């Protein structure tokens, strides 16, 4: 909850002003019963018509003042709550963007989105309500209490009994409510999560014809949400009538006592009417207070969830000062690097990795599933920090770089295609805002993407939906490559990015890269041995360790693992086929 203090400091002045107006409003409201009682007791009883009219006028005047105060208060309240909500959302978004991968993956993505939308709105609504009536209610209640006590101390005994009982009810209400609402939000998360998953996997669901299965899965979650919501609302709904009843008993008591009082001549009827009015006022206010606490409990659950994100501390060491790069541009050194996602040595997915990639080299990285290729490559832009050893880029440890500067040098084409809503041009421009159309086209040509883009009806202005639906897998990959190329990076990383591209096209891309980027260091993670066969050197990874390092020929001679891979794809017989053809 500490994160809230920042906003409290910023907005408290406006908040207080709003509350001040609220008080004026409340005051005006409070005076009504008194004036009414005067009209009756003084005006009517003594048949003083002018007095009645005068007091009527006063009442209207006070009402008008109240309305002005209320409008001002309402406007202020809107300003405060809306601005607060926008700021909170913005800060939360920034926080999420700044989180390291390790930390982001602690949260379910759908949950992060829910927190940014639904939870922020809950808190915002609560703050808003606070200034609208939630503060008014206690004020009115207290005001009515004061007026009532002043009016007739004897009758106030009733209040002394009623009020504490109500307070107890409210406290119990709150205690019960919080855990209930947390459960409701969790159930909501689950429902949203299922919907989200389904949207991602529509084709597969249809392909496996698992309509029934999906619907049932959803039903279960849906039902749980419904049950939890229902029970939480029901439990909370006991308290309002209970509170009301308590106050109403108070009214009855007043009438009873009033009877005696009037009989003895110690009380005036007008007082009793006014007192009852105040009790009514108090009861309404208490109802509202009870509702406030309901909302508060909800908001508290949301605040807690938002707070969880803000509370995440980055484990990585703080960025050290920017140094001037002294080493060779595009050089990468792995020095005895070990890495584990959990930080524990037993779970290391990379062990004792040592090699050097020289500027301008094209290096292939190959290995079986889960051998650590993507992990290795994710260390270079510092998506994760090494657990042991040191990783240097341009001769400097990556931890000495500001991540921003480090990533400026690197262009990554990830394994999974991620394109965004927008035109093809915008997507490619993502890699480099300053790129003009000709640069974009050039990058597209190099990536063998220009032809099919130009062939599309709107060309570069063709819109791409989520994940780029209009284009085939291989085409999306090429757009991703263009996006990386337009960046003019020192280091280009292609993480299995030509898997969906056919061999011939891949050849052309590689040739273009060779021509275009002589000084660019290029890392190629691939499954096809043909993709890496012609690179300057190849790193073979096996179970997180370097199992071979060298050129294709060297590895074919010396590395058992490499031989296996080679044969499994090429096959001994194919070797002969190919050679036969070549000779002819």
């Amino acid at each position: 909850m500490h994160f809230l203090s920042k906003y409290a400091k910023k907005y408290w002045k406006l908040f207080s002003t709003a509350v001040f107006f609220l008080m004026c409003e409340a005051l005006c409201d409070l005076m009504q019963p008194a004036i009414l009682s005067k009209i009756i007791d003084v005006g009517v009883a003594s048949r003083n018509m002018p007095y009645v009219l005068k007091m009527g006028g006063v009442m209207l005047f006070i009402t008008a003042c109240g309305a002005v105060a209320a409008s001002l208060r309402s406007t202020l309240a809107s300003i405060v709550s809306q601005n607060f909500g926008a700021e909170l959302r913005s800060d939360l978004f920034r926080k999420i963007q700044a989180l390291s991968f390790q930390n982001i993956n602690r949260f379910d993505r759908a949950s992060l989105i829910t927190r940014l939308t639904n939870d922020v709105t809950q808190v915002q609504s609560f703050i808003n309500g606070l200034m609208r009536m939630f503060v008014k209610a206690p004020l009115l209640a207290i005001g009515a209490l004061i007026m009532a006590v002043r009016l007739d101390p004897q009758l106030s005994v009733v209040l002394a009994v009623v009020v504490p009982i109500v307070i107890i009810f409210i406290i119990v209400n709150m205690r019960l409510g919080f855990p209930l609402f947390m459960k409701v939000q969790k159930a909501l998360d689950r429902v949203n999560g299922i919907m989200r998953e389904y949207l991602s996997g529509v084709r597969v669901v249809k392909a496996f014809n698992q309509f029934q299965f999906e619907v049932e899965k959803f039903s279960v979650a849906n039902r749980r949400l419904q049950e939890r919501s229902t029970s939480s609302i029901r439990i909370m709904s006991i308290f309002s009538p209970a509170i009301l009843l308590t106050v109403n008993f108070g009214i009855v008591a007043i009438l009873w006592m009033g009877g005696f009082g009037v009989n003895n001549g110690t009380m005036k009827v007008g007082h009793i009417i006014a007192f009852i009015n105040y009790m009514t006022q108090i009861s309404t206010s208490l109802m509202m207070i009870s509702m406030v606490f309901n909302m508060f409990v909800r908001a508290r659950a949301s605040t807690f969830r938002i707070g969880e994100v803000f509370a995440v501390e980055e484990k990585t060491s703080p960025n050290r000062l920017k140094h001037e790069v002294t080493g060779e541009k595009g050089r990468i050194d792995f020095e005895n690097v070990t890495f584990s996602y959990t930080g524990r040595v037993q779970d290391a997915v990379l062990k004792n990795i040592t090699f050097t990639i020289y500027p301008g080299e094209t290096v292939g990285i190959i290995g079986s599933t889960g051998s650590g290729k993507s992990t290795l490559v994710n260390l270079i832009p510092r998506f994760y920090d090494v657990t042991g050893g040191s990783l240097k880029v341009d001769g400097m440890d990556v931890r000495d770089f500001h991540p921003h500067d480090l990533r400026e040098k690197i262009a990554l084409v990830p394994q999974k295609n991620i394109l965004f809503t927008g035109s093809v041009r915008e997507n490619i421009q993502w890699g480099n805002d300053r790129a003009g159309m000709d640069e974009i086209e050039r990058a597209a040509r190099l990536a063998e993407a220009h032809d099919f883009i130009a062939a599309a009806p709107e060309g570069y202005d063709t819109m791409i939906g989520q994940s780029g639906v209009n284009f085939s897998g291989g085409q999306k990959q090429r757009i991703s490559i263009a996006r990386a190329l337009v960046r003019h990076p020192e280091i280009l990383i292609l993480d299995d990015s030509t898997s969906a591209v056919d061999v011939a096209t891949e050849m052309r891309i590689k040739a273009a890269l060779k021509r275009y980027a002589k000084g660019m260091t290029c890392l190629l993670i691939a499954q096809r041995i043909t993709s890496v066969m012609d690179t300057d050197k190849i790193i073979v990874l096996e179970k997180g360790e370097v199992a071979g390092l060298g050129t294709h020929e060297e590895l074919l001679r010396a590395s058992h693992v490499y031989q296996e891979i080679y044969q499994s794809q090429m096959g001994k017989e194919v070797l002969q086929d190919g050679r036969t053809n070549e000779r002819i």
Partner: protein
Amino acid sequence: MAGQTNGYKGNQAPGPFLRMGRPGGGGAARFRGPAEKPKQFKGTLKRLWAYFGRERNGLSVILALIVADSVLTLCIPYFIGRAVDAMPPGRKVHFNLLEIMIFVLTAAYIADAVLTFLQGWLVAGVSQRIVQRLRSHLFQKLQKLPVSFFDARTHGELMSRLSNDIDNVSNTISQSTTQLMSGVIALLGTLMMMIILSPVLTVASLCTVPLVFLLTRTIAKRTSVLFKNNQAELGRLNGHIEETISGIEVVKAFNHEEKAIKKFEEVNQSLLKVGLRAQIWSGFLMPLMNVINNFGFAMVAVVGGVLALKGMITVGVIASFLTYSRQFVRPLNNLANIFNVLQSGVAGAERVFDILDEKEEPEDAREAIVLRDPKGHVVFENVSFGYREDVPIIKNISFEAKPGTRTALVGPTGAGKTTIVNLLTRFYDVTEGRIFIDGKDIRAYTRDSLRRSFGFVLQDTYLFSGTIKENIKYGNPEAADEEVEEAARLAHADIFINRMPDKYETILSENGGNLSQGQRQLLAIARVFLAKPALLILDEATSSIDTRTERFIQDALLSMMEGRTSFIIAHRLNTIRDADHIMVIDHGQIIEQGSHDELMAHRGRYYHMFYNQFKNMGEG
């Protein structure tokens, strides 16, 4: 007084809907500008009401409770009035009357509390069930929509409707239901009592009602537009959030955090502006209502005073009347409020109904037959197709795959290979030509049976957040555990599964995020092994797995393909070399077809592709 909330619950966060201007994008993406009022206000209300239909019993009981409670509430001020009359100013107190009234009042209050509680209890059940039903319908509807619908929209957009909009409707329903019913009854009942007490005074208080109407309409006109705008902006924001959080790796890799934040701010500010205006306008409602109300009270007090002076009514009547007046304006205020709240609720409901109105996948023809024990004889006859009418992807393709054969589709990306698969399974329907399976046009079969006869291993894996076992069983929910393990073994997934602490009970995170890409592919393959379909489609399935593991899988797939018609789309010539029939596809047409030997002898496209792959072999 019934326990009604006098509340105006601040701005809701009503459902947003992101519209992407997609030029001719597939599916019926209707285009609605932001500044529209909920056009079919009444129509939407009616449809919402239909959901209440099933709750008829519950609603009737609630109604009865409300009526009873309202009657009580109406009488209470009267009782209070009589009790006060038992204490005439300056004279003796009639204790008998007082005692009776007090007794009656106590009973009334207790009854009121019980009735209110019961109301709350029942309403909670009713409203939550309605929302549950709405959610369920939506989800079921989604199952029936064609793939083109999903392809044309962003996830954030759809999610918004499914979560924010339904939340909005849910809030509106729970808030408005009782208040509406009780409000109307209270209003009418109170009015009746007031007339009975004193027609003159009633007229005095009612003079404010037209003002209330005017005020409500003026404000609602403005706020309805503003709420719609609010939702639109919220939708945009949601879409942006969804994208940048889903694709956060790319955002970081490209140093795009600042830009993502900037765009966020832009939409956030936009939302702020609209939200602020909506709020401020809504905020004028209550204060102004108050003024009008108090004016009414003043009138009552003054006119009442005059009448009392003339001896036409008693002081007790004024007291009762004032209480009734208060009781009259409360539901009036609530109704005005509800009208406002309904604006946003209805807008939200409209967006939900938009989806419910979407065109589903065309029904199977009535005479559709179930495809049983397919032999797997596939024929494409002059098939043409394009996702968009002006962009044909496939032109006039014809080929035949005999039962049990392996057909390989090769060619550059975008040539139409995946599209052929889409057509085979009727994710999309051909524009021209026909596709036959076992001699019948595939449109003659039920979609269910058609799809069930295929086994897919697609480019994108879909795994869900359940256990590994559940994910594999997706292929056949009835399978026994041993079958699951056997399937995993065949797919070579058992190795990594057994290395995990919970083995088959390991829970996967969203879309299997805690596994590597390759491992996910293996699970997807195991899933197919379990399903044992009659026809197989492998769409670049094993591209993400390294060639070593792939070799093992190849063997397993080979044995699985025994006797089954299969279609393989891969780029690795090695994997298709052994196919019975190879088709080279480019620019939507079949360039060459034949067996590997035939095509190599032909020295055409295939020959060159194959040759290129080994160009750099050298003396390996």
